[in-house]
Structure formats: C-alpha cells, structure tokens
C-alpha cells in the first residue's frame, strides 16, 4: 500500500466533504447499500423468532465478555489438546512478530490470505513485506483493493467503491496473463481472478486467516465466506495461521445455532452464506497456529458503556442503513472499521489522541437506524454520545457550553437572555465568525422569534 491507512491525515468532516463530491462513489454506495438492505429485510422477515435470536446473541456475547479470562483459557486448552498451538499478542507489533516468525520457520516467502479485518487492523501485510514475505489476498474484492493499491471501503464488500470498468483496468494493469480482450463483464472478470489465483492456491504452503467465531468448549474455529477462496486457503496449505481478536469467542458449540442464523442474514442478506468451514486444532495433517489478539480490546472491555462494541460480529448491517456512511463512504472514516460501528470501535481501540479519531464519534446524525439493524443490539447512538463527552473539545466550545450551562440552570437568567436575544434578533448573522462557524457551516441558525414563549404565555395567561 502506498500510504498508511491508520493515521490518515485530516478528520471525518474534511474526508467526507471530499467524498460527497464524488458522484460515482455516491452512486455506487447508494446502489450497494440499498440492494443489500432490501435483501436483508426480506430474509430477516422470514424468521418469526428474529428478535429472540437477537436477544440471545446479545446475551451470549455479553456473558462471554464478562467471563472472557475463563473462556480464553478453556479455548487455549481445547485447541492445544486438538494439536494446535496458541500464541498471545498484546498489540499489533507483537502479533506481526509472531506471524512473521512462524512464516520464516517454514522457509516460505509467499503466503495466501483469507479476507480478515484483524490482519488489516494490525497491518500484517506490510509487516510481512518488511521481512521479504509477500502476502496475497485471495478474496476477489480484497484482490481488487490490493492490486489497485487502494483501501477497503466496506466491511463486507471492500471494493464496492469500484465499478466494473475500473476493475478491468486494474486487472489489465496488474495480472500478467490478462490481455486487452478481457471484457468488463462480471463473469469474465471473476474468471480472470480464478485463473490468477488457482495456481497460487495449489502451490502455497502457508495460509493466514482470521475467524468469525471461536468456540471455547471445543476449540473449533469458524470462517464464513462465499467464494471458496477461504476453503482453498484453510484446506490446501501445510501451515495455517489464524489471527483472531479475543472478543470473537463463544462459550459453547450450541451457541453457533444462534450466530449462524444472525450473521449471514444480517450481512449478505442470504439465508446462509455459500461456504462455512469449521476446524478444530490440527485437521487432516495441517500445522495449525492460533494468534489471540488484544490490541486495545481490553481497553474497550474496561469501559462499561463502550464494551458493547465488542459484541460486533462484523456483519456490516449498520453500514448499509446509515445515511452518513451512504454518502461519505468507507474511506472517510480512516480505519478498517468504517460506518457506525467504526465510529465507536476505532476511537475506543486507538484512543482519541489524533484529530481523525476524535472526530469519529461526531460522524453520525444519531438517527438510531444502526441500533435497529444490529443483530446483537449494540446501542451505537448511546456509545457515540458517551464518546462525544470524552472527546477533546476546543477552548471556545468549552467556554460557550459553560456560559450556556450557567444560563440554562436558572429560569430568571434564561428569561433575561431570551429577552435580550429578541431585541438583537435582526442583527444575528447567518454565519457565525471564528470557531463558531464550524457550527453554522453545517446547520442553519434557528430564527429567533419576536417574543419568547415564556413572555407569550405570561401575556396570554393574564389576558
């Protein structure tokens, strides 16, 4: 990649301002989010027990988080018993070091990868490249993003900001066997990708994946996908390394009956995704390594309001219903986790010391559609408001709020202030000067009435 995604300069308002001027992007996003949204609504509507599944999913995740230490140890024991090796990583650097050492030990310099948000979060591909190891993404969308030297813009369909002619150009430019007679027909493009990757699958000795779920009771890992690239990576190579966030745990085998209904229907809007692979420890002679990743997750866990973000199963339903995401797109969030969930997860995982991360809790209209759509009932608006209070505020804003608080705290002061405002109402400009312009650039100043309601009431009550 040409630039580091994390630590992107600017802030959400600046990034989104640029994005909304891109009409192609807006068109692609609108089409994609509305299509998936419609499909999701129809398959969710099929299940009479959707709300009960949602309540169970929420409670299973909360229960797991509250006993995470116990379940992590149980998982470690089960995976080890089944012939796998468990590694623990405090942060991105440690996870990258563990994976790099494991790959080096095999003597290989190429690895194939299954789409994984956790490895994007820790920038594993760049870390491997620094040690002379090339990581090949095998999910079609991730391949498009990787070959295009680009960033993913959606959790589920990372290349949704690209259209077919752009994808054809990228393939023409970056795939050695592709000739100019390649059309931009989606089946033709998919066939080109199939040919490009097939030999690599059969040749690769090492694969790296994430996981959608890990079952503490049995040590089973679960990956849901559509294309079969996941099955290729999980099955064919001799060594499999899975990097998984510690929050992806489920206590028991039985809990999959809930999440295998919630996830596919919420993400792609299908009754079930085409392929799900489950494996327990070293399967069919493979050498299996599991890297358990913290990287800020325990900080999120420590926040009583914010910890619900760790329930997230990365379905992207919240992105597809969000009016802000639909217009601004995924890149504006400057993180691998875009949309409403990204707006609460990213500043919690990374802290709010950068301008971008401090701006993310404000990247929302608080309309609540994300909460409605969330299959594990994460109250995203609640966390947003909580984070807004914790975000750093400008001195002028703090002073303004202090004055407002002083006035609003006393009804006589408020009445005086309202009377003063009606007297100068003709003088209030449409756009406020200085730092206050940040407010008026995106909102209309409400018109000040000739008379306050309190005065009107007083007058009419007496009459």
């Amino acid at each position, binding site marked *: 990649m040409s630039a580091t995604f994390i630590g992107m300069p600017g802030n959400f308002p600046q990034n989104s301002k640029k994005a909304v001027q891109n009409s192609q992007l807006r068109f692609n996003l609108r089409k994609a989010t509305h299509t998936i949204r419609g499909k999701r609504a129809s398959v969710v509507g099929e299940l009479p027990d959707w709300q009960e599944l949602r309540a169970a999913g929420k409670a299973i995740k909360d229960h797991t988080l509250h*006993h*995470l230490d116990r379940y992590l140890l149980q998982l470690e024991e089960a995976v080890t018993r089944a012939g796998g090796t468990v590694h623990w990583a405090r942060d991105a650097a*440690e996870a990258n070091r563990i994976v790099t050492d494991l790959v080096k030990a095999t003597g290989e310099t190429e690895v194939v990868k299954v789409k994984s948000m956790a490895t994007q979060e820790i920038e594993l591909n760049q870390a491997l490249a620094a040690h002379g190891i090339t990581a090949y993404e095998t999910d079609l969308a991730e391949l498009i993003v990787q070959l295009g030297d680009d960033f993913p813009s959606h959790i589920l369909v990372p290349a*949704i900001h690209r259209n077919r002619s752009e994808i054809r150009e990228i393939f023409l430019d970056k795939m050695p066997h592709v000739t100019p007679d390649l059309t931009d027909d989606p089946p033709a493009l*998919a066939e080109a990708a199939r040919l490009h990757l097939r030999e690599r699958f059969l040749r690769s000795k090492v694969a790296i994946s994430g996981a959608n779920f890990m079952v503490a009771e049995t040590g089973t890992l679960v990956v849901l996908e559509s294309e079969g690239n996941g099955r290729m990576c999980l099955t064919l190579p001799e060594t499999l390394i899975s990097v998984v966030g510690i929050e992806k745990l489920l206590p028991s*085998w039985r809990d999959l009956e809930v999440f295998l209904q919630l996830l596919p229907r919420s993400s792609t809007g299908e009754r*079930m995704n*085409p392929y799900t692979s489950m494996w327990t420890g070293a399967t*069919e002679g493979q050498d299996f390594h599991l890297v358990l990743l913290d990287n800020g997750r325990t900080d999120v*866990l420590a926040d009583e309001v914010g910890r619900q973000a760790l329930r997230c199963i990365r379905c992207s339903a919240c992105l597809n219903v969000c009016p802000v995401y639909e217009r601004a797109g995924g890149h504006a969030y400057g993180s691998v986790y875009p949309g409403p969930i990204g707006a609460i997860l990213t500043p919690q995982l990374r802290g709010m010391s950068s301008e971008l991360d401090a701006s993310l809790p404000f990247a929302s209209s608080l309309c609540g559609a994300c909460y409605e759509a969330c299959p594990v009932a994460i109250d995203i608006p609640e966390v947003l408001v909580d984070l807004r209070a914790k975000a750093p505020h400008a001195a002028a804003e703090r002073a303004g709020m202090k004055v407002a608080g002083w006035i609003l705290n006393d009804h006589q002061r408020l009445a005086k202030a309202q009377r003063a405002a009606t007297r100068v109402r003709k003088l209030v400009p449409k756009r406020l000067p200085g730092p206050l312009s940040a407010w008026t650039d995106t909102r209309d100043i409400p018109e000040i009435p000739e008379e306050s309601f309190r005065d009107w009431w007083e007058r009419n009550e007496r009459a």
Partner: protein
Amino acid sequence: MSAREEILARVRKAVAGAGDVEIPRRYRTERQVEDLVGLFAERVDDYRAIVHVVPAAGLAAKIDECLGERRMIVPDGFDRAGGWDDLDTADGVITNCAVGIAETGTIVLDHGPGQGTRAQTLVPDYHLCVVRADQIVAGVPEAVARLDPSRPLTWISGPSATSDIELNRVEGVHGPRTLEVVIST
C-alpha cells in the same frame, strides 16, 4: 510478564465487578415442517444449484444420468465402484453428506465415509452430492445438535459465488461452479 498473563490480567481488571448475564433461549430450536424434502429442494434450488428428488430405487440410474462421461473422484466409502484419483484433472467429485438443512438449503459435510477430504470437494469444478431424506433437518439448531465438532465440517449452500463486482452474483470464483444435488427418498 508473558503476553498471556498480561492479557488475562487486563481482562480480569476490565470486568471486575461485572455481573453475570442470563442467556434467554426463547428462539425456535425445534420446528415442524410438513414437507422437509420439498422445502430443502426448493431452498437448494434458490441458490442456482441443480436439484433432483428420486426414490431410493432409482438413485443409481439418476447418478449415472447426472455424471455422463465425467471423470469423477469417488471417495472411500461411497457406494460406487471406480473413480478418478487425480485432483487436478478430475471433472468432478461425488459425495454423501452428514446433514441437510431445509430452512436454509444447506448441505453439511463432516468428511466421514463417502464424503472425501476437504480438498476433494473443493478443487474439482463439479460437485454431485447425494442427500438421503432422513438426513434432512428443519433448521440450523437441529443441524448443530447433530454434528460432531471434533470433525472438520464444511457447510455448503449453493455453488461458489461472489458479489464483489457491482453486487452482480457470479458463480464459481474458486470453488465448484456447479453443485448438483440428488435427494433420495
């Protein structure tokens, strides 16, 4: 302190005092479906797989008809003689399954007898799967209860598909492009 000890210590500190959470399981775990075979066939067909329903006595003839001249991998334990053994040049694979799920149109392989290895059902371009009517359950909870987590499991719902290019569904990016299912009643 090792990373393991440090992460566990951070977790314990983070959730100290957090109460227990009761898990409400009021969702459906058993459901009555009048025509399990019919619903399963309809839902598998929805994924653009090819579906046939035949009485057990007609199974062998139906399989012959489906296979034609294809060079097939026949895994150990599948009730049929003769098979191709080269993964790279086989036209297809024929297998049994462990469970079929009617509500979602899903076939689950546990790679037991007659189901081949994970690679055998993945690399060839064509997969013919035989599902016995008594292997079909109504929903996901019923299937999870029947499966053995110590086995590798592959859940298949239709042929390989991608929607990554402008959300157009394209079959067979990497896995088998054709899934044919014969349900034996």
